[in-house]
């Protein structure tokens, strides 16, 4: 309380001074008040141009829509993959205006379609990175999954997949479909089976689809995937 009264006194004194100055110099007071942003100007300074749908705080402009999109769970990993040989694709659509999203259907040749490949939970990933020296850079795609156990069924797939040229669609945990490979360049298949040595070692096969020399990141795909019977 002892500190409060001096502060109140000082506040009253400053207010009285302000009122006195306003009454003595009304024109200057009006000009000063108009120079300070107020009303709609304050709102504009804080949230930016409403028409542009953005906020402006501390000189950083972030669209409101982007904040809303970011303000949600963002799990990693893949939940499913679908595979087709590139030669079995009849029509591979071009991406839309953003150069990275394909929203019309990939059409397989008659009798062909994508097949789902099962894999262990939390073992699927799709990655892309720049590759090549400066002046010759391109983008590399790779998609990896782990299939537990060594089995005749899995090994039969491996036998028929080596030297294949594939296009693979992986769904990430956020629901986005990403395509490794494109109509001109597929991804190759590699495997690495390990039985393990001890009872609690992993016994299974790492599958890898990879390719280099792409001119784009793995496309986003928003259409339906036709499934082979």
């Amino acid at each position: 309380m002892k500190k409060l009264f001096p502060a109140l006194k000082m506040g009253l004194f400053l207010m009285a001074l302000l009122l006195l100055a306003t009454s003595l110099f009304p024109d200057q007071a009006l000009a000063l008040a108009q120079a300070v942003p107020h009303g709609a100007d304050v709102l504009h300074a804080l949230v930016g141009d409403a028409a542009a749908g953005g906020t402006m705080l501390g000189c950083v402009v972030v669209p409101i829509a982007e904040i809303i999109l970011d303000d949600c769970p963002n799990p990693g990993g893949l939940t499913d993959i679908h595979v087709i040989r590139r030669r079995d694709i009849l029509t591979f659509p071009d991406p839309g205006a953003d150069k990275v999203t394909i929203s019309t259907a990939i059409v397989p040749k008659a009798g062909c379609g994508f097949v789902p490949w099962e894999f262990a939970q939390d073992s699927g990933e799709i990655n892309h990175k720049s590759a090549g020296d400066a002046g010759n850079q391109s983008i590399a795609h790779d998609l990896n999954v782990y299939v537990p156990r060594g089995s005749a069924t899995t090994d039969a797939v491996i036998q028929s997949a080596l030297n294949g040229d594939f296009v693979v669609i992986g769904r990430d945990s956020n629901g986005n479909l990403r395509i490794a490979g494109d109509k001109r360049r597929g991804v190759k298949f590699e495997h690495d089976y390990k039985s393990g040595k001890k009872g609690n070692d992993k016994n299974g096969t790492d599958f890898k689809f990879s390719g280099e020399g792409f001119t784009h990141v793995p496309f986003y795909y928003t259409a339906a995937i036709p499934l082979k019977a």
Partner: protein
Amino acid sequence: MLTKFDLVNTDGLKGLSYDGDFVPFDKITDELAEQLEGKTHVLKRKSPAAAAKAMKAVEAESAK
């Protein structure tokens, strides 16, 4: 049953994967087909006359 669309180009295919779900061809409804239009090569919109005829057939079937 589809009344507004025909299923085409389904040879060798068993269905679609859409929005994370497996959709057999016999489970595609008109509502889903509207969503899938342009996103698959297996659906072709019927002419208005053919759609009206199919709708009448469905209504007659349900009235039995």
